[in-house]
């Protein structure tokens, strides 16, 4: 108990929670559409809640729902979601040094709350300080805000998604949320190449069954980015 009280400061936790409110507003349409997607894939409300509460990743949930509706085999669904989730490895590695002072129990709990948005909001703060406690507490607060809001918006989308007029084109909010994540990354040549190769591949291979184009395109983009990064380094060293 004592270790717990020392590890987390309630004031910072509350601050992190409140700080996440603007991002939550932006994620509302994304959560709604993800809930609609679960309904369209034929999930019941418990299955939809399971997706948002346990998978807790918009990209993986959208992919799973799309592939599920397309009748893809389990192995393809799981593999595609796994590759999309590999970005968490990167976030995990970036967060690890800052979470090291915390007790393992807290590390295990905070890891579950690691999402694109929570990572983006906290990593800059970790960089700025030597004491991990305050940013970790804020991360906990922000992560909890995101998790709770994600359940609310997913369920709202599942139950009331059909009340939203089609003319609002709310489903367009999903690619926009990912554009908000990807566009700021496109600052160096290998990353641009990774995106361009993946983009071309996913369109060119549209005819592949079971939405295999998604994973093939993703892996091609990763390979293209990595190779151009390696060759660029070799070139500049000469």
């Amino acid at each position, binding site marked *: 108990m004592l270790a717990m009280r020392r590890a987390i400061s309630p004031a910072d936790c509350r601050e992190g929670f409140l700080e996440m409110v603007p991002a939550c507003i932006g994620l509302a349409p994304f959560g709604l559409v993800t809930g609609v997607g679960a309904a369209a894939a034929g999930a019941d409300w418990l299955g939809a809640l*399971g997706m948002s509460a346990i*998978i807790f990743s918009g990209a993986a949930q959208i992919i*799973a729902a799309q592939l599920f509706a397309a009748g893809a085999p389990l192995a393809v669904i799981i593999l595609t979601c796994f590759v999309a989730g590999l970005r968490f490895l990167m976030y995990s590695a970036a967060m690890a040094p800052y979470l090291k002072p915390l007790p393992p129990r807290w590390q295990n709990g905070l*890891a579950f709350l690691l999402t694109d948005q929570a990572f983006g909001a906290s990593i800059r703060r970790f960089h700025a300080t030597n004491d991990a406690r305050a940013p970790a507490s804020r991360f906990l607060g922000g992560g909890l805000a995101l998790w709770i809001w994600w359940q609310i918006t997913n369920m709202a989308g599942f139950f009331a998604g059909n009340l939203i007029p089609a003319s609002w084109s709310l489903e367009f909010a999903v690619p926009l949320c990912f554009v908000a994540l990807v566009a700021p990354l496109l600052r160096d040549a290998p990353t641009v190449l990774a995106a361009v190769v993946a983009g071309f591949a996913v369109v060119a291979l549209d005819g592949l069954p079971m939405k295999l184009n998604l994973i093939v*395109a*993703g892996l091609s*983009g990763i390979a293209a980015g990595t190779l151009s990064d390696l060759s660029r380094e070799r070139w500049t060293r000469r």
Partner: protein
Amino acid sequence: MDATLKLWFVILTVGLLNYLSRLSFIAVFARTSMPPLLARALKYVPAAMLTALILPMILAAPASAAPLNPRVAAAIVAGIVAFCTHSTLKTLGAGMAALWLLQALPASIG
């Protein structure tokens, strides 16, 4: 397999794999440093995987009289805003506003 069972298998497996990915370097491999080649490759996962995911959503055109898919133009506007502001809310606002405007235009001209 029963569809409900299949869905729960996906939920639990993907949930577990996602959690292990999140936990990986925080706990499981805490004592090892990431192999340099893996670190390099992982840098390109978001750009590649998320682009592959969103591009078909942007190119999927609902029946429309517009010569150019308004979603492509709206996504470009959103991309510029995202690149400059790093803000999800502003990206969303600009992209949706651009889409609504472009969808309304052909109707008012025609």
